[in-house]
């Protein structure tokens, strides 16, 4: 799988997850157009498979709260930060599993529990990034693996 194909898989999976389960429409955005803020929620999911790696997800505070309200069917204004964080972790978990189901279709993988991170982990090895503008903010997802996915010749 080429880097471009992996980027495409990450983009498609992110859009599908947002639309089907979080009822959010996402517009592709160049990564540089999505500004990071200190208040952003950041979540990470490690996975073991062939290959192993990590998915990091960054959501603006407003987008996270809006998505959590839609997902849980509750007024976002009354949701605690803890519950908003739980939903962001679930979003990261589903995006990660969805990408892995595409690229590791011939094997199995295992996801660790997603966790909120204090800071963006930075670019991992063999990383691809997808950014999107949502109705109420922005999202960036970075998918990285310890080695290239299905390198040519293997």
């Amino acid at each position: 799988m080429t880097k471009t194909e992996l980027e495409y898989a990450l983009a498609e999976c992110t859009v599908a997850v947002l639309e089907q389960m979080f009822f959010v429409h996402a517009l592709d955005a160049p990564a540089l157009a999505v500004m990071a803020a200190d208040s952003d929620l950041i979540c990470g999911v490690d996975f073991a498979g062939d290959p192993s790696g990590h998915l990091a997800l960054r959501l603006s505070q407003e987008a996270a709260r809006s998505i959590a309200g839609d997902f849980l069917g509750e007024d976002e204004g009354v949701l605690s930060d803890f519950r908003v964080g739980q939903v962001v972790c679930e979003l990261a978990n589903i995006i990660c599993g969805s990408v892995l189901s595409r690229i590791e279709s011939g094997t199995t993988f295992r996801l660790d529990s997603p966790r909120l991170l204090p800071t963006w982990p930075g670019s991992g090895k063999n990383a691809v990034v997808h950014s999107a503008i949502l109705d109420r903010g922005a999202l960036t997802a970075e998918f990285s693996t310890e080695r290239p996915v299905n390198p040519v010749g293997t």
Partner: protein
Amino acid sequence: MAYRLLIVDDSPAMRSFIRRVIDLSGFELAGCWEASDGIEALELLRTEWVDAILSDINMPGMDGEEFLRHLAADELLRAVPVIIVSTDGTDQRIERMLALGARGYVVKPFRPEVLREALEKTLAVPCD
């Protein structure tokens, strides 16, 4: 007819979402219980009979595979149909879970109607 369901998932947010999808789909429930992993689910099944179980795979404590094995080994509980609801859509995983006795498999992300259809099929609910 109203049904009794058990949702097994380590994510409280996901359990809430599944429950909401079922409620919104008009599926009539006589009861809906939640457990965070297989151990908690088996404990609950000692006292509550359910018509179907919706279970994740990746869970700390007892995961979905181990949970299915425990159900299959129990004379009474092996009759309860299990639908796996997981992010893992790999062929190997789906085949393995079905071989372990799962009656249905729903891959996340899913549209709400997909979950309803899986429940209807598993419970043999007559169509409207």
